[in-house]
């Protein structure tokens, strides 16, 4: 379906006809979230998914996803943890402990633990040791050395697989949850001090084994366990006895996370509910405290496989691929819009690229690419109409990648004849030929040695140049002509550090290239003269405009926008317009119009009843439209057309694994 917008001649410049590209079903979007790890020092969150991707979110920068490590078919992570400050480790079912290099955005090394598949991992409170629980029932201790980890010793071997681990804050004891029992080990001797048998059912008998999905060790010696029978139990580790038992769900309780101050913890269940437990005094002025279940949150539809507790919020993620961050009201100091619920559904990197000349969209999936031609319509209508398509969208190409690695980035050139994509170890470039409605693909072989793996790929506007940001920190410019390519230049990273380029943008006239690295600096390169500038071109453009912006200040709602901007593009003919979008809205900033002050309405109603009226009263620079709700991608096709790709949430849910059955009255 296509929708018509305002006429471009009007000063509102909402953007003309826009086509809604509907996605058909496919394995689209993110995979299920498996583990979450919160780093207190840097306020960052590491999220690992079932396809092996690991993403790092910066929680203080508006929850923006700053880095990600592409997935691999054989890597199924089961545990993720931060250790020694900024080092990130993960362990999975292939039996290896992997350390990630956060600067170069690749994997430092993978060490086999020789215990079979690894189910759980925990870093010691002193941050110098790593504990790993394996399939064969052994608990292995590793020492973290400055550049690697080293195996230290094995603890007493248990009968069944160790599914969860937790250190006592002093580092003297650990609790290990297994199937039907929990063991408490003494770290110095490595022997099991207590073995606490877990009931299979809350006050009953059951045939199914009780799997202890999570344990947490508090400093007063209490061990909290969550298991597959839906119970949260409190044990005393000194005597090895059960203190209290709560039955909170009919399904598994799959995760637990305790706050640093140990006065609250959060658990996630398989029904999608997240419960918050707090330590409250028994009566209002007594010193005795007890654990009470205070708040339930139902933000997920499927299993909540992992939770994390930051000082001010509860973070949960699960099989329905959403990452939900719920700030706790009593912990938040400034009660502004920051304290709202954040639900991160779509990845923040660009998965769709658009070829303007030929109206093609390239969709990037984990293991293949799809090329679609947009449908067209000849009907016209007023604002807000949905026009019928005269020609439906065409599926042109399905390109499958070889090997187990996921695709990191992909791009199609604006003229539509080149497709480039990269995995963690290889770079592929294809040439497309169009002849009378047929399309044929030819692979450009013999990639040069430096083009191994790219973090970002971008074509210039006239499709003669290819810009590749490699993971070694260098930026390569390749000249494309006919069927061959020639390497023009490589911008080496400044100051010799290996900094991986994350974002790329090229100006329409092809002269300037902007790149931002992991340390959040923006470098602008002059492609014509092959020199590096720093902020010069944007500065020149933005100085006048940004000065006024500083003076007026942004509209308060704009500042309170809770989702980061995912994509920015410019209209080549109208340098005064900037088009940006995030997951919920798209917005055109018109620099020629005055900035809004706090009093005016930020969100223009759509469609307006009386055009001239609205124009006069609320004409300001920000034109925001919220008609396309879960917006995945938006770009300018030509003078009068925008293309927007929506991904309805129901589509995503339709492809997920089965959820727990909920009995509702009346059904």
């Amino acid at each position, binding site marked *: 379906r296509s929708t018509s917008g305002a006429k471009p001649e009007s000063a509102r410049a909402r953007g003309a006809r826009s086509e809604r590209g509907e996605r058909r079903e496919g394995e689209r979007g993110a995979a299920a979230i498996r583990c979450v790890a919160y780093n207190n020092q840097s306020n960052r969150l590491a999220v690992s998914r079932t396809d092996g991707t690991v993403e790092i979110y910066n929680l203080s920068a508006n929850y923006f996803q700053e880095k990600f490590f592409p997935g691999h078919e054989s890597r*199924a992570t089961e545990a993720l943890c931060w250790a020694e400050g900024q080092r990130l480790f993960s362990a999975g*079912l*292939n*039996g290896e402990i992997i350390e990630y290099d956060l600067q170069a955005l*690749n*994997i430092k*090394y*993978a*060490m*086999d633990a*020789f215990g*079979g*598949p690894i*189910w759980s991992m925990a870093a010691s409170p002193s941050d110098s040791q790593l504990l790993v629980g394996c*399939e064969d029932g052994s608990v292995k201790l590793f020492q973290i050395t400055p550049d690697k980890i080293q195996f230290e010793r094995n603890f007493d071997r248990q009968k069944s*697989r160790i599914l969860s681990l937790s250190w006592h804050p002093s580092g003297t004891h650990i609790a290990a949850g297994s199937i039907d029992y929990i063991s408490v080990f003494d770290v110095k001797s490595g022997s099991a001090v207590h073995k606490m048998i877990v009931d299979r059912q809350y006050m009953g008998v059951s*045939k*199914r084994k009780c*799997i202890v999905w999570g344990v947490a060790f508090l400093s007063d010696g209490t061990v909290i366990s969550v298991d*597959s029978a839906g119970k949260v139990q409190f044990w005393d580790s000194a005597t090895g006895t059960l203190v209290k038992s709560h039955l909170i769900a*009919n*399904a*598994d309780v799959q995760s637990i996370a305790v706050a640093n101050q140990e006065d609250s913890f959060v658990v996630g269940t*398989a029904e999608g509910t997240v419960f918050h437990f707090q330590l409250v005094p028994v009566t209002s002025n007594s010193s005795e405290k007890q654990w009470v279940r205070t708040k339930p949150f139902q933000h997920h*539809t499927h*299993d909540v496989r992992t939770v994390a507790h930051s000082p001010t919020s509860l973070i949960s993620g699960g099989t329905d691929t959403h990452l939900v961050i719920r700030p706790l009201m009593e912990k938040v100091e400034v009660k502004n819009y920051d304290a709202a619920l954040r639900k991160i559904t779509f990845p923040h990197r660009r998965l769709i690229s658009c070829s303007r000349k030929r109206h093609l969209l390239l969709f990037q999936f984990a293991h293949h690419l799809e090329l679609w031609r947009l449908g067209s319509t000849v009907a016209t209508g007023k604002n807000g109409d949905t026009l019928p398509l005269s020609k439906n969208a065409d599926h042109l190409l399905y390109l499958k990648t*070889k*090997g187990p690695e996921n695709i990191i980035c992909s791009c199609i050139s604006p003229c539509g004849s080149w497709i480039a994509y990269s995995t963690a*170890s*290889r770079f592929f470039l294809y040439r497309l030929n169009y002849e009378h409605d047929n399309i044929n693909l030819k692979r450009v072989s013999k990639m040069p040695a430096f083009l*191994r793996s790219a973090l970002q790929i971008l074509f210039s506007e006239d499709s003669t140049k290819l810009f590749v940001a490699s993971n070694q920190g260098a930026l390569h410019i390749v000249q494309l002509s006919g069927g061959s390519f020639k390497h023009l230049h490589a911008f080496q990273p400044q100051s010799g550090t290996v900094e991986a380029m994350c974002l790329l943008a090229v100006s329409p006239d092809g002269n300037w290239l902007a790149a931002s690295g992991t340390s959040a600096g923006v470098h602008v390169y002059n492609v014509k003269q092959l020199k590096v500038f720093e902020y010069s071109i944007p500065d020149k453009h933005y100085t006048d405009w940004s000065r006024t912006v500083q003076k007026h200040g942004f509209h308060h709602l704009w500042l309170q926008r809770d989702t980061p901007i995912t994509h920015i593009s410019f209209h080549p003919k109208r340098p005064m317009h900037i088009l940006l979008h995030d997951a919920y809205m798209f917005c055109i900033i018109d620099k020629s119009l005055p900035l809004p002050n706090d009093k005016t309405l930020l969100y223009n109603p759509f469609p307006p009843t009386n055009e001239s009226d609205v124009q006069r009263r609320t004409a300001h620079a920000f034109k925001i439209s919220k008609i396309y709700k879960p917006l995945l991608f938006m770009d300018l096709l030509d003078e009068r057309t925008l293309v927007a790709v929506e991904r309805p949430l*129901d589509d995503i*849910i*339709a492809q*997920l*694994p*089965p*959820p*727990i*059955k*909920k009995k*509702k009255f*009346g*059904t």
Partner: protein
Amino acid sequence: MVQLRPRASRAPVSAEAMVDEGQPASEEEAEHGLLLGQPSSGAAAEPLEEDEEGDEEFDNEAPEELTFASAQAEAREEERRVRETVRRDKTLLKEKRKRREELFIEQKKRKLLPDTVLEKLTTASQTNIKKSPGKVKEVNLQKKNEDCEKGNDSKKVKVQKVQSVSQNKSYLAVRLKDQDLREARQQAAQAFIHNSLYGPGTNRTTVNKFLSLANKRLPVKRAAVQFLNNAWGIQKKQNAKRFKRRWMVRKMKTKK
């Protein structure tokens, strides 16, 4: 009257008697009876026929004489023939087996790496197994066609692995036995997780039912989110399609 020679069964005789109703001559009767009463086996028929002929002329002649020697010779011939066939069969089988073995060896050889590479590997393993691994690239034997770098992986020397062999095509030879064991364990672990989360005894429902719960409780009830079941009767539909195709072809043929 008691007859010295046992005659054939009386049934055909009586039938004949019925047909002829009367006075068959004794000789004719004998003939007919013998002819009709002959057993079906050919071997027995012959001597009887002869007998019958002989019977006419020489009633009481003794049967032919078969010497012991000739019978023995015959038996030996038979034995020899049988032994020969058995021997021939055995040799044929042997040959077949030999040929098949050779074929297998050929195929195996084709599958393995070329000899040169194997030599290099064995020599390299002696020298490199003690060396601390510098830049090591690892590719499984099955994927030897892919030459891509997979970053620096340093492995413990405990496992029987061979470090990089040649400069340009750097790969690592891994024992398939280890790989299989690892795969098996990973599969078992995944099966365990799947079983405990989605296996029998868990209270799971389909996504369709889950999303349709809301529709059921609306004041104006609506249909389920996925109302049609496209997976119903797939085999039937396929059979119907095939039948239709064949029927069409047949129709076209007969029309022509």
